[in-house]
């Protein structure tokens, strides 16, 4: 009995995804060094990072092709993790504001 795996992308798709990931990384580093982008640096970097994250999860971890239940198993805790991050930041900076009166 062989182990069953789900349908996956082709080698060509894997290579294209790798090229896109490298290009996005180069853009991220480029944006970091260009002074003109300093005002929008944080949102631009977060969006680019989210695109890279999504590409790896969808194509290399095969969530795009696999059973939807895996998306739920991964997406649920991921969403919860994001809520933890945002909540901690809001609580912490809220407390700092209250303490300093700013």
């Amino acid at each position, binding site marked *: 009995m062989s182990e069953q795996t789900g349908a*996956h992308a082709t080698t060509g798709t*894997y290579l294209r995804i790798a090229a896109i990931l490298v290009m996005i990384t180069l853009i991220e*580093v480029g944006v970091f060094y260009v002074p003109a982008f300093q005002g929008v640096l944080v949102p631009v970097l977060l969006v680019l990072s989210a695109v890279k994250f999504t590409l*790896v999860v969808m194509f290399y*971890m095969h969530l795009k092709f696999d059973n939807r239940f895996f998306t739920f*198993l991964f997406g649920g805790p*991921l969403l*919860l993790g994001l809520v933890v991050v945002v909540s*901690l930041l809001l609580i912490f900076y809220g407390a700092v504001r209250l303490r300093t009166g700013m």
Partner: protein
Amino acid sequence: MAYNTDTHAVAAAHGHATFMGIDNRKMAFWAFIGSECLLFGSLIATYLVYKGRSLVGPYPHEILNIPFTSFSTFDLLMSSLAMVLALAAIQRGDMKQGKLWLFVTALLGLIFLGGQFWEFSHFVHEGLGLTTNLFGSTFYVLTGTHGAHVTIGVIWLLTLWIQALRGKLGPQNALTVEITGLYWHFVDVVWIVIFTVVYLIQ
């Protein structure tokens, strides 16, 4: 009794399909990855909460080396590519390519770990220890936890590679390789976030 023993042995070797038709090992591993999201979410949140609150240096902008870390990021992204190529080769029964790409994945992981060791040594030399300031504490705990995960991944990959060399890994074990790949790609996506949050957003 003999029947039960045989049944359990077969189940241990090949896993069970759940009522949804999903392999139980793959489902359990996705649940584990979900729990890892919470672990790294907490560590990243802690880093962000204490960001910019160090009373003494060295501060991030004085010490972080973006070109070097960009190379480490490139290295880890390429290791993810090597991992999917290894899985694809093993699925189609091309064990020669499968062994090659498994080794390349492990080697790129080792290069990443070497880079992290050099980075940590350099930071300690520059005066940034685990207890020097809030940046040091949160930085070492977050990136160190990630490094520990990479180390486990490299050991796992090398174990599979040795099994393949000994002829004990074949297309019939494609799911085992896929689960290893899930772990490795997760380590990669965590680094994608760390690279942005810690290194680029200073």
